């Protein structure tokens, strides 16, 4: 039963998240952390961190990790299947007929608004997660330094994440 819930939860996440792995985070947070209470805000943050510093797409990594926390390796399997399946089916359909949709006006304007929703959702996710992650002045300093480094776009994000972990070891 839990496995089916995992599968359908991640199926929904896979179907409704536009903009890649990080865009899935608001949906995963809403389903897994807030509604189902399967993992805590803190664990969710750790899952994102681990997803970022390990190989592979972020979306899959977060799904695999959450699935594992809920129901071991089988949980990982069902979460991964759920998150991949919707876009796989859509891709197959598009691969067959994509010339028709691409330039269509309705498709373009729907896409524009969905992007707006995505920006609002993703920024909100950062805000919702901040009380659990930026707990004191030291956390605030790490946050600001990391933000500056991401914005400079000179380093691989995975490296910045690992370095902030090392800074955490020094400061805490």
């Amino acid at each position, binding site marked *: 039963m839990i496995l089916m819930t995992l599968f359908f939860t991640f199926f929904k996440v*896979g179907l409704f*998240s*536009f903009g*890649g*792995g*990080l*865009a899935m985070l608001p*949906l995963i947070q809403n389903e897994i952390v807030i509604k189902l209470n399967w993992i805590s805000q803190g664990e969710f*943050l*750790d899952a994102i*961190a681990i*997803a*970022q*510093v*390990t*190989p*592979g*797409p972020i*979306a*899959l990594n977060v799904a695999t990790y959450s699935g*594992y*926390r809920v129901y071991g390796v089988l949980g*990982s399997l069902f979460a*991964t299947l759920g998150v*991949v399946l*919707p*876009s*796989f089916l859509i*891709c197959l359909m*598009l691969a067959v007929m994509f010339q028709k949709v*691409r330039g269509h*006006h309705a498709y373009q*304007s729907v896409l*524009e*608004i*969905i992007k*707006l*929703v995505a*920006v*609002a*959702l993703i*920024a*909100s996710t*950062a805000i919702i*997660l901040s009380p659990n*992650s930026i707990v004191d002045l030291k956390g605030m300093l*790490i*946050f600001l330094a*990391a*933000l500056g480094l991401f914005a400079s776009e000179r380093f*691989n994000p*995975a490296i*910045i*994440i690992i370095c*902030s*972990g090392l*800074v*955490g*070891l020094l*400061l805490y």
Partner: protein
Amino acid sequence: MRNISLFSQFFKIAFFTLGGGYAILPVMRNHFVIKTLLIEEEEFQEYLSLVQGMPGSLAVNCATFIGYRLKGPKGAVIAVLGSVMPSFMVISTISYFFAKIGENPVVMRFFMGIRPAVVALILYFAFTMARKMNWNLTKAVFLIIFFTLFLLFRINPIVLILIGVTFGLGYSWYVLREAKK
């Protein structure tokens, strides 16, 4: 191309790239467009614009298109399996150990440092997405409305996306009707 070769190409790309979709896509381009010449540049750019307008993982969706192009539906399945397998193996292993070492004080301090950086990463990602859009006043107002609906009223994200789709279709219908007049 043999099935196993197709599988291992996607497996290697996913296994050796840190940082998710935006890091993997350039590596895929490098491999399939520049190195092996299996996909033409123009075609790859079309895949890129498509996957950014679709739900799901960028890397997996792009793999599906490339796999389909090279070997039909079977190729698509093989490409997806190849891209998914590394995450699955690595994360299952890490989760297994993390469950045991997660309470360790050193690990906890490490993650105390990582969490603020993750929030910065998500915020910065929202910013890069916003930067790529063509802004006008209407869109800014909509952004604030969606922001309030989610943050203050906790409307389900899926409901918000469906509202977005409805608005988009309505707007398009309106513009096309005006154009016909």
